[in-house]
């Protein structure tokens, strides 16, 4: 964290196309975003908006057709093989599905040690690091001897977070990490994300469809629609007084847990829908 205002990650005019060039499906149309050290940047949008594709492109799981991804001054847009594996030290991931993201045939301890032993750490060192991370995500020490199937969704997500943390990365791509969890579990896992960020200064790219979650955890947020960013700004502002009509529609569509406020919000939403329909007719 040399300079807090120099971005850790910059994405410039990113285009991702699946299938053959020109004929394939274009998931991202020139997306630009930046993340500073210790910052959490949210990406919200509906399914198919390209929000997960953005995270996957940064992780090297989606092809970069055009544009540039720079991490800590290094162009990683087309990092392959050994270069990409070297990045594993710095960029990590937490996926949405707490059931599919942990290999069911391995013990938790082995799952967590794997990224370290691959990097050539000794077994003793790996064991210590794993024990520390287990403690950091508030799971009992006995966790390491058990299998993923013995844990609930929230506990599994804690294990996935611990795995992302063991190599002390500087950026974690979080792809809908709390969407599959119960509400009360969701808020404790969000608190854990915030606590870890404060402790070790890691940055997050936080992909979600839930504006409430994004408001809680993100400093800035980008709203995506059909492969483009329509609004990018302060999270508290975008989630309360959005500028772009699409962001407004997203906000009004998410119900609030308060009958009176929700009745009001629904009225506004219906009015906005009327307007849109009228505009469509014209």
């Amino acid at each position, binding site marked *: 964290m040399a300079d807090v205002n120099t971005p850790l990650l910059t994405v410039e005019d990113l285009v991702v196309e699946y299938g053959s060039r020109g004929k394939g499906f274009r998931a991202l149309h020139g997306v630009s975003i930046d993340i500073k050290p210790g910052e959490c940047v949210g990406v919200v949008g*509906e399914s198919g908006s390209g929000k997960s594709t953005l995270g996957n492109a940064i*992780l*090297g*799981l989606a092809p970069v057709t055009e544009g540039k991804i720079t991490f800590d001054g290094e162009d990683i847009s087309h990092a392959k093989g050994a270069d990409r*594996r*070297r990045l*594993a030290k710095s960029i*990590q*991931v937490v*996926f*949405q*599905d707490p059931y*599919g*993201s*942990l*290999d069911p*045939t*391995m013990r938790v301890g082995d799952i967590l040690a*794997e*990224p370290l032993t691959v990097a050539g750490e000794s077994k003793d060192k790996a064991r210590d690091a794993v024990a520390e991370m287990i403690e950091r995500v508030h799971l*009992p*020490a*006995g966790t390491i*001897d*058990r299998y993923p199937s*013995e844990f609930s969704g929230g506990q599994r997500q804690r294990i996935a977070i611990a*795995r992302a943390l063991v*190599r002390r990365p500087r950026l974690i791509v979080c792809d809908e990490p709390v969407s599959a969890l*119960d*509400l*009360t*579990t*969701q*808020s404790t896992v969000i608190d854990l994300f*915030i606590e870890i960020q*404060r402790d070790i200064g890691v940055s997050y790219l936080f992909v979600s*469809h*839930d*504006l*409430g979650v994004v*408001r*809680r955890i993100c*400093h800035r947020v980008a709203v995506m629609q059909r492969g483009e960013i329509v609004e990018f700004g*302060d*999270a*508290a502002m975008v989630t309360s007084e959005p500028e772009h009509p699409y962001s407004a*529609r*997203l906000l*009004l*569509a*998410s*119900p*609030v*847990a*308060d*009958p009176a*406020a*929700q009745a009001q919000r*629904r009225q506004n*939403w219906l009015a906005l829908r009327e307007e849109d329909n009228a505009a469509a007719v014209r």
Partner: protein
Amino acid sequence: MSTTAIVQEDADPRASKRQSIFSRFIRTPAGIISLGVILFIIAVAVLAPWISPQDPNYVDLFAAKAPPSAEHWLGGDSTGRDILSRLIWGTRTTLWGALITIVTALVIGAPAGVVAGYFGGAFDRAASWVSDAIQAIPGMIILLVVAAGTRQNFPLLMATVGVLLTPGYYRIARARTLTIRNEPFVAAAWVAGLSHPRIIVKHIFPGVYAPIIIQTALAAGIAMGIQAGLQFLGIGSANVPSWGAMMNEGFRFMLTSPLLLLWPSAALGVTIAALAVMGSTLGDLVRVRTPSAGKKATAAAATANAAARAPATGAFAYDADKAAVRVENLRVAYATPSGESEVVHGISFDVAPGEVLGIVGESGSGKSQTVFSMLDLLPSGGRYEADGIVISGRDVAKLPAKERAKLLGSEIGYIPQEPMSNLDPCYTIGFQLMQPLRSVHKKSRKEARDIARAMLERVGIADVDRVMKSYPFEISGGMAQRVLIAGAIAGQPSVLLADEPTTALDVTVQAEVLELLRELQDEFHMALVLVTHNFGVVADICDRVIVMRDGDIVEVGEVRETFAGAKEPYTRDLISASLDGAASRRELDEEFAGKGANAQPAAQGA
């Protein structure tokens, strides 16, 4: 310390549940018997030189076609050789041939399948084409050609059989790999810095080997069958004893000495049967993770439960004759290996016509089980009992299953959580909407079509003609949910049950669907029971709400009152967990920074 102890303590029984497939395999009767037979056969083959009573090729002309005797336990063959000895040495030939076949098929097929499934691309296309081509080739002709061309070279022939069996391994390995390849843990391993070969060894292989072993048991049986067939046709040296050649000889003298055919046929039959049983037993063990509960255990648990029953939770808000739905003391239980486990412990509630009742709770609270019981659609192993489930004045819990099923689609409409998996991809939307109208409501084709069209229009689908002709995969998730709603209301039910109807949808679509449900419910004056975990949805549409926790109702109330001042702390926790109006990250950080600043001087002072 105490937490650690607890964790380790209950880790033990869980660990025993996770026993290896092998130890569960030898505990089933079919498993231990088939394994015993195969081990016996292998032992016979290995020990042949020592246990065979005579040289298999020693000719004793007096023993020609001799019946079983003390000297020749199974008698002699047509040229006077000892049948038992030939059978024992034939076991060697059979197993050796099967081994060559299996190793060939395994070594070529399995790695090719894993690589094709993992990397895809050109290799996948080429390998799949070759695999299909091998399957299309008439195997016996190839084998006869190879036999003729190589002067009946036995190992080469068996290896050829192996190549012919390669597609079996290739397809299984490829399909399993494809499935695992798409699991997020493989992507996570890649992001963690594992190379592709390492991912294949560490993460793909453990998921592929079980079906490969099963395939091997079955393929070994097939290999032995083909081998015997070739020998029966006279391929192979006459001096090497083999079961197939013995069967050929037995076939020639079938009418005069039927025993000549019996012995080798029995040996081959028992061996192949043992392999087949072993394969299918392994297959069952891999597919079913936990053994199903015995009936005794279920009954014992049921009585035990009955003794320790707590009174029902929940309450009624209306008189029995005013309610559209009245559920009294509903219990749901599932059979588990250690007896029956109750997931809903006696709940009572009711809904008036035209009212929207929300059932909220976290996963495992029993909210969906409640709806499934009302629909009589509990998954297998599940069972419910109730003092009454009265829907529109009839106690449906006392109706026979057939009568009960008729209510679905007429009295009771159901909207599921996953719209896509609740539509059959093989039929058009129109057909799926018309089918229940025709079979349940006995409408003519034209009437059914008119109703279906009207309903689709009613749920806000603009292009009705196109949607009627579409298959489910041609429409979006939101559209699919509208179609299901159209289907649910087509029979004009008095009660609509919706299980998390908007959870799988985007928020904008969710808002549309909730608005639609509100309109329809208003228009048809239905009682709507809506299961959800989202308090925003409750605030949006529900009149009353039930809060469930661990199979009990902890709170019932009017929505406005519940939100204004919930009686139960659990309800308040749930409502406050929704993050609406909660502090934003900036506010949290400011608060945190403030605390840090305050705390420091204090520490210095101390």
